[in-house]
């Protein structure tokens, strides 16, 4: 199947292309065949605009503006011609967005465009996020290696998981795959079901090459056993620190070697890792660590009990990617506002919202590691830490909802638990037991 360049085609420059500016010249170096291409200003601009989010028409419009040219039609023709030349040199590829599975399956892998596919689920978190599109290059079984993220078809749907191993048995080839976020590998996948390899991710209109996203993991996988032995020998000479009794141990900016050097980690509520160093965490001697979260680079991290407000929306350039460890209060958000404020929420703990509709909206954008989304009124009393619930609560607050996070001890003078305090706190029984002994 041959593909000709059209106005509505999306384009991406090859990730093997290195652009160097030298004085007034721009040189493109293609690392695949060690060749150089001298680019004029127009070709350079075109390659820069081939970012996975622009069509031929978009590029022509941008160039017409840049070079003050009124004849958009002729600019578009020139761009098409230039793109065709760049495509022949495999410097630029076409992207087809959300293609029908039949088209993806039937296209050959030689001259094939790249396919931008939307995938559901969190099985590849944090490398792939639920709102990402993956850029898939068609390939055959022999082109796959351990650690690649491969797309295969499963009853008309596409699945992207990482290759653990490849094998050939009785003339049939198989791959074993697993989602990074999954605990178990998938059943063996026959080579005939393989669609291609994920080479990049389109996230919020920006292109992220897989080799960059995956750099940390690849590095760990490729490490030879001899170099590991050298590292281990070096470590024997080093002092090995231990971390005990900390709320948050943030290791996101710490190198893999330093993490390997940690002697022990004990009684930690939360450990934060980056995608680059997360894969060495299993080597750490850790005891009584309640939570370990790998945080993608673009994500904000809130630990504790933040109460977020809808007013945030008017100041956000785009919805938030957020990791919350603890309790987050979103009770002021109306249905519709949650979607505008949050692109993806990773929750380890509880999120409180004001209604069932808001709960459903939040759950649609949330990856719950542990915990749940609860419904609570916006007007509530909140105590964190150690608190005592006495009969005075009902006198002042009547039936107002109490959310107590931490130890809530009923006063010996409390004869019955007010309804508002009973909703989220398991103290009813101890009060009844106390009353029975009186």
């Amino acid at each position: 199947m041959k593909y000709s360049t059209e106005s509505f085609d999306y384009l991406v420059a090859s990730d093997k292309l290195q652009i160097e500016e030298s004085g007034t010249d721009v040189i493109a170096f293609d690392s695949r065949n060690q060749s150089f291409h001298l680019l004029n200003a127009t070709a350079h601009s075109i390659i820069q605009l081939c970012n996975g989010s622009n069509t031929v028409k978009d590029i022509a419009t941008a160039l017409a503006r840049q070079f003050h040219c009124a004849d958009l039609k002729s600019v578009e023709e020139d761009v098409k011609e230039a793109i065709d030349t760049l495509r022949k040199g495999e410097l630029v590829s076409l992207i087809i967005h959300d293609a029908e599975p039949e088209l993806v399956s039937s296209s050959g892998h030689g001259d094939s465009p790249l396919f931008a596919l939307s995938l559901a689920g969190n099985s590849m978190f944090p490398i792939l996020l639920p709102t990402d599109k993956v850029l898939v290059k068609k390939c055959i079984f022999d082109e796959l290696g351990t650690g690649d993220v491969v797309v295969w078809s499963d009853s008309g749907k596409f699945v992207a998981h990482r290759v653990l191993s490849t094998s050939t048995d009785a003339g049939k080839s198989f791959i074993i795959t697993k989602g990074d976020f999954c605990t178990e590998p998938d059943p063996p996948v026959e080579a005939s079901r393989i669609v291609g390899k994920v080479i990049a991710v389109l996230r919020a209109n920006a292109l992220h090459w897989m080799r960059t996203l995956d750099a940390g993991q690849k590095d760990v996988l490729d490490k030879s056993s001899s170099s590991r032995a050298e590292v281990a020998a070096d470590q024997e000479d080093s002092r090995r620190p231990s971390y005990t009794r900390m709320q948050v141990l943030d290791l996101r900016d710490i190198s893999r070697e330093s993490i390997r050097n940690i002697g022990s980690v004990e009684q930690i509520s939360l450990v934060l890792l980056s995608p680059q160093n997360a894969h060495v965490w299993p080597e750490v001697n850790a005891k009584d660590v309640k939570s370990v979260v790998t945080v993608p680079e673009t994500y904000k991290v809130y630990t504790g009990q933040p109460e977020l407000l809808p007013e945030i929306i008017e100041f956000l350039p785009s919805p938030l990617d957020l990791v919350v460890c603890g309790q987050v209060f979103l009770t002021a958000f109306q249905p519709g506002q949650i979607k505008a404020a949050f692109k993806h929420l990773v929750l380890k703990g509880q999120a409180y919202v004001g209604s069932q509709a808001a709960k459903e909206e939040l759950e649609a954008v949330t990856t719950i590691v542990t915990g749940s989304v609860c419904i609570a009124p916006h007007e509530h009393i909140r105590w964190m830490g150690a608190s005592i619930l006495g009969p005075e609560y009902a006198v002042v607050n009547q039936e107002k909802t109490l959310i107590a996070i931490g130890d809530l001890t009923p006063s010996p003078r409390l004869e019955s638990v007010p309804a508002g305090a009973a909703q989220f706190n398991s103290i009813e029984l101890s009060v009844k037991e106390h009353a029975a002994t009186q």
Partner: protein
Amino acid sequence: MRSVIRDLPILDLRSISTADIGKIERVENVRTVVLNPANAEAFMRVPRTDVRSHLIIKDDEILHIGQIEFNDKFLETLADNTRLVVLGHIFVDGFTPELFFRKIQAMRMYGQVLYSHTKSVGALLSRLERLQGQLLQMPPNSIRWVGATYLDKTLLDSVSGYSIVSIGMLTLDPKVTLNDLTSHLKSMVQIGELKGKEETISAFLAVCNRRLGPCTIA
């Protein structure tokens, strides 16, 4: 000569060289260790116990320690496009969003954010990359009690009709009653340890909309 450092709320090692960090034998019972990117790796090799958190301040970041009234006056003291890290608490009774966005490029916050002006805190959240602590609403222009406070009838008389934000240990006089508290305090936000008789603590908590910390029955 190697040293043992212990029993500090904050240990600021930003100006200490990698070689000198290597001379530290042990760090014990420190709430927060502050480091720079160049010496953070070296500190990872220092044995420690009861170090509750460490904070790496990048070269382009500014660290503020303590309580901040986060308003236009404070923002005016900052350079444009500041990357601000706060170790402590901030009070937000309102600021000009345009000024905030000009001055603050990004923020990290380790402590509590107490706010009364929702639009301002909305702006702040949009630039807040890391929050370790609470984000708590307080009534506008609340009276601040910062540090250890002894709450008795005389103090209550002096703040009658006001909303209070208390940060630090609060000891309750045993003579204070529920009626004293409800008749004097408009609202209460309390962060820190609470000490007193069981009845007094129960009465005090009944008037707290938001509170955080341990409590000790004396």
